[in-house]
């Protein structure tokens, strides 16, 4: 079985092989069956989604085509505002009236493009930590093996796309929260260039590290979503004033003339439990070479510095946002969320400023590496998804290779790269130059024209 992509669904909608109502029924039936086990949704928009799908069909029948997302079912991480519904942040603490009177700009853009929003998806509380089973929220699980973590914090979006509960969705990424669930769930996730997608109406975690991005089966699907999502909005002071666009149009499958730096040293910093990460990286590099790319070995000497900066800055900025609420409502926060955020209380103002200064030094050093190549290729994580019971709270970030690139603000795509011998997904990251999101997506697309890992479905989604 291969999974349905946005690209294929859009084709079926226009060829008369399917309607938006059909697509919605298909994903809703799967959600009825699987969501109680997988914990993908916090809220399902059954009635509103049905209305949106019927409207999409009426418009297409009348000749009004809003583009490739018209009639496509999408999930939205529950830290992004949706008009008329409370955004919980998967927390007892969040004020339910927060932004309830309007959509986040990125959600509004998806709706205007005809997307059918099926509901709000599970997250780690306030996009950090791990699920606390004592709190009244679903515990998200990985459709490839429900005893394992789907990754976080965009857990529900990742698990939902992998299991076919929607065809794409929104995630956010402060230390890897798009790329980790994409990696562990065997799908594609894109952390855009910092400021490319406006963050207004999104609960903050680390103001200077937060990104909103698409998660879907394929890089091509992510490009279709990013074409709609990217663009300036004055409500986000960090929004890029001039957005290149044209992401889907840049996908040709031909990487002739592109120089790819393969980074094999980062995985050496953590144990490869499965022994499969470097072979998957090598196979990916070979597929990209077959697409015409030139491969060279590179090393990011400041990788650890960038990762350290992400850790210190995230803890400091998160604690700045949450301090007053944590003073008053400590026990209402989940145990793992408060454990992460309270780390900010252990750091000084000087630590924070120093981290920002060091970040500039490390970014400049990475620029020197990037000056020699168009993109850098490296694994997303040291292993496939761990079982919940095997997660070590204090070393969690050391086995994930994503946070360094939040410090840089560079565009990064996480794409499926194969499977372990036990059938769990593996992933690689493609890191690009500032605002070169189109190049990063084109590399992912070229890979996916030559491999089928991104189309593999977990058994749970294919059994009656």
């Amino acid at each position, binding site marked *: 079985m291969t999974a349905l992509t946005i690209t294929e669904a859009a084709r079926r909608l226009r060829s008369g092989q399917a309607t938006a109502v059909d697509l919605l029924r298909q994903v809703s039936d799967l959600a009825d069956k699987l969501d109680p086990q997988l914990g993908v949704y916090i809220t399902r928009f059954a009635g509103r989604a049905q209305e949106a799908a019927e409207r999409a069909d009426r418009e297409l029948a009348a000749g009004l085509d809003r583009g490739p997302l018209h009639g496509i079912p999408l999930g939205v991480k529950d830290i992004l505002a949706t008009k008329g519904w409370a955004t919980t942040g998967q927390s007892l603490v969040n004020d339910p009236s927060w932004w309830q009177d309007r959509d986040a700009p990125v959600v509004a853009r998806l709706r205007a493009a005809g997307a059918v929003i099926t509901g709000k998806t599970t997250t780690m509380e306030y996009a950090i930590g791990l699920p606390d089973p004592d709190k009244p929220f679903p515990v998200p699980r990985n459709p490839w093996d429900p005893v394992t973590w789907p990754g976080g914090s965009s857990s529900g979006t990742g698990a939902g796309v992998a299991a076919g509960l929607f065809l794409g969705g929104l995630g956010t990424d402060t230390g890897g929260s798009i790329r980790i669930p994409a990696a562990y769930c065997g799908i594609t996730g894109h952390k855009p260039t910092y400021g490319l997608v406006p963050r207004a109406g999104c609960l903050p975690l680390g103001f*200077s590290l937060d990104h909103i991005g698409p998660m879907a089966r394929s890089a091509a699907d992510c490009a279709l979503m990013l074409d709609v999502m990217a663009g300036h909005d004055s409500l986000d002071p960090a929004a890029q004033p001039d957005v290149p666009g044209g992401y889907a149009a840049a996908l040709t499958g031909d990487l002739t003339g592109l120089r790819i730096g393969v980074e094999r040293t980062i995985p050496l910093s953590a144990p490869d439990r499965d022994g499969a990460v470097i072979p998957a990286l090598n196979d990916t590099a070979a597929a990209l070479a077959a697409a015409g790319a030139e491969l060279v070995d590179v090393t990011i000497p400041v990788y650890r510095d960038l990762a350290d900066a992400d850790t210190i800055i995230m803890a400091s900025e998160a604690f700045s946002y949450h301090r007053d609420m944590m003073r008053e409502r400590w026990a209402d926060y989940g145990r793992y969320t408060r454990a992460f955020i309270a*780390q900010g209380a*252990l750091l000084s103002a000087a630590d924070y400023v*120093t981290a920002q*200064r060091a970040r*500039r*030094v490390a970014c400049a050093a990475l620029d020197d590496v990037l000056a020699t190549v168009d993109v850098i290729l490296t694994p997303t994580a040291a292993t496939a998804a761990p079982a*919940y019971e095997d997660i070590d709270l204090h070393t969690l970030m050391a086995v994930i290779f994503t946070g360094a690139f939040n410090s840089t603000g560079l565009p990064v795509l996480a794409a499926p790269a194969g499977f372990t011998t036990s059938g769990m997904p593996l992933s690689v990251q493609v890191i690009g130059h*500032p605002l070169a999101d189109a190049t990063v997506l084109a590399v992912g697309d070229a890979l996916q024209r030559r491999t089928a890992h991104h189309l593999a479905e977990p058994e749970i989604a294919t059994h009656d």
Partner: protein
Amino acid sequence: MTDVSPEVSPDVQSPPQTTVELVRALTTAAGLAPSAAEIESLAVAYPILRGAADRLQAIAGDTDPAPVFNPVPMFQAARDA
């Protein structure tokens, strides 16, 4: 519903008492009220955080103290180059 617990593994490390006392003082000063077990867990995390902060101090050098990361002009300049 699967019956496997989503509990993560418990801490097996035991931090030095001086670190525990430091963490207790810092969290109290910040107005937080963690339990004794939570303070102990934070004390396991503290050397990792402190090590990261100290490494960053070493590489920050004499870089200007720009406290806010603002990549907008930097990225635009790179794009225009």
